[in-house]
């Protein structure tokens, strides 16, 4: 019974991590890549570490696992947000079929943009 749960958790976690890698390779845009990588890799690592905690079933291992999962869940969104923000301000272009650019359309940051950025239809200042 416990081995079955471990096998399922391991396979689920590996599947999600593999999907993250596939998304990082196949997505057309850095923002979609960040999204795919952070979401899927967080879930994948959490599932695999839960399988490890279930396998060893000792207090020391479970404590470490809980620490890793909590830290990953706390820091992965922060890191993804900082990376996306830095990529946006360093002029990474959006995918050409993207329809919304709320940070650019808000107008608060238009001064920091240079002119070599291809203008999106809804990026005018209000």
């Amino acid at each position, binding site marked *: 019974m416990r081995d079955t749960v471990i096998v399922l958790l391991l396979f689920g976690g590996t599947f999600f991590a593999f999907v993250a890698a596939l998304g990082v*390779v196949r997505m057309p845009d850095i923002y979609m890549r960040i999204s795919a*990588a952070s979401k899927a890799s967080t879930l994948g690592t959490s599932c695999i570490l839960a399988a*490890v905690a279930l396998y060893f079933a000792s207090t020391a291992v479970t404590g470490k696992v809980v620490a*890793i999962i909590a830290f990953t869940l706390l820091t992965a969104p922060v890191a993804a947000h900082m990376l996306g923000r830095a990529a946006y301000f360093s002029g990474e272009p959006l995918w050409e079929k993207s329809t919304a650019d709320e940070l650019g359309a808000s107008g608060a940051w238009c001064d920091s943009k240079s002119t070599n950025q291809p203008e999106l239809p809804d990026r005018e200042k209000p």
Partner: protein
Amino acid sequence: MTLATYISWCILPLLGTGMLLTFIRVLRGPSLPDRVVALDLMATFIIATSAVYSIASNQPSYLDAAVVLALITFLGTVAFAYYLHKRGRNA
């Protein structure tokens, strides 16, 4: 089929393939933020691989490496994002 066989014939090859795919993005990512994202994901893969390997070899000490890597990776990503932000648009 024991758990160690299952891991070494099913889980570890999948994780290795995922790491190779991510490394493709590191190699040909068109810009620096792409490479940073891919390196972040590679570190996550290394955490997952060392956790899985601790089951396969019945040795919970490998989890210490996972803890340290989870702490270090966040610092590295934040440092890269800070550098990208400071570098600005025209560099």
